[in-house]
């Protein structure tokens, strides 16, 4: 019981893999926003094929963590960490990535990411 209560109050943390020298930016995501993203994840279908290649320098994707779960998102690939691997789903419209980046506080992310704060 105690575990489930503490898990319910656990914070949802998002972040962007983008910088090399500075620490990557992270922020707290509201529980309602995180739940909306998870509902969206539940509606996505499995993604087959090759993952989009990520550059060495610059934007390399974003993540959402909470309640012992972690998603990594890069363009149309949304990956949920599982024991022994990843479950990968296709987000053609990249809504998960857009919603997650849009949840960042104003001016936290560089303008090149195109998040309109």
């Amino acid at each position, binding site marked *: 019981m105690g575990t489930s209560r503490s898990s319910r109050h656990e914070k949802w943390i998002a972040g962007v*893999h*983008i910088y*090399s020298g500075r620490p990557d930016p992270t922020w707290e995501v509201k529980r309602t926003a995180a739940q909306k993203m998870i509902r969206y994840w539940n509606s996505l279908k499995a993604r*087959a*094929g090759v993952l989009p*290649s990520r550059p060495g320098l*610059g934007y390399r994707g974003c993540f959402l963590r909470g309640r012992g779960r972690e998603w990594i998102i890069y363009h149309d690939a949304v990956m949920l960490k599982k024991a022994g*691997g990843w479950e990968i789903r296709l987000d053609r419209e990249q809504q998960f990535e857009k919603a997650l980046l849009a949840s960042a506080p104003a001016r936290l992310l560089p303008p090149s990411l195109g998040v309109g704060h």
Partner: protein
Amino acid sequence: MSLRITIDVFSGRENPVIELKGSAAREVLERLRPTRRLSKQDRRLPAMATLGYRGLVIEQLGKPARGLPRVLRYAHGDLFGPGLAHRAADVALEDFVCGSTGLVRKLKLGPRFPELLTKEIERFRWIREKYPSKPTAWPWPLRNPCRCAPLYEPDWWNVPQRQPYNNCYNYSTNYRTDTFAQPGRAAGATYAALTCAAVRPAAVADCLIDSPSAYNKCPAKGHLVALVVWPGGDYHWYRKGRNGYWSHKPGGTPATNLDNSAATIPDPRTADRGPYTDFCTFMVVMHGHIKIK
């Protein structure tokens, strides 16, 4: 006689496998018959495994046919295996196996899979042209070998206990702190802006020696590093290695000797640096003199 053909394409999922017996297996073996030996001008396989299609792995499950090893890899008409680097009799075997009317249809991987695979096969052709096939074939020694520079040893950095906690500044200075070191932090002089003018003095406060006129030449003592800036976004460092080429570690990701276009880096000024558009300066790291945190 039977053959197992593995379409080496996935990373997380298991690769698709096709098994052939009897006359079907013999037909494929005939298509695989080696003809001429590949010349130095012919493309080889990338030195490192890449994401996506990487060729067809062919295994002979019974007694191997003469002239072919038990296991070989086929890519774009070329055969690779122990003692094998030849052109195959059929340079379009991938189409026979993976095309829209090919053997892959039997696997029921979805109607779009052959199309996706065809695109992947073409992408791998481009990778084979672009990626260096033998990183060890770097010219050695260069005219100006860097005898005091650190070795390129990514295996040491790219492990879970070090990789996430050491950034480009740690890697370039060859100084592990496990703190994601920041220029100037150890000296109480952290940069206040993300410009060359701000980050350069912060590094100087850590006792790196600003050497704008180094012009990509190794110093007599210590080793050369290079500072670049993503204006208003971030900074990044490269280090020149003992073989004269540069390597770097983008943030918490693995150390690499390739730039954003998967090319080796003879000079960071001309490398594909992504958003780090401003080249600031070369600096010298005197081993044991610097302090970073």
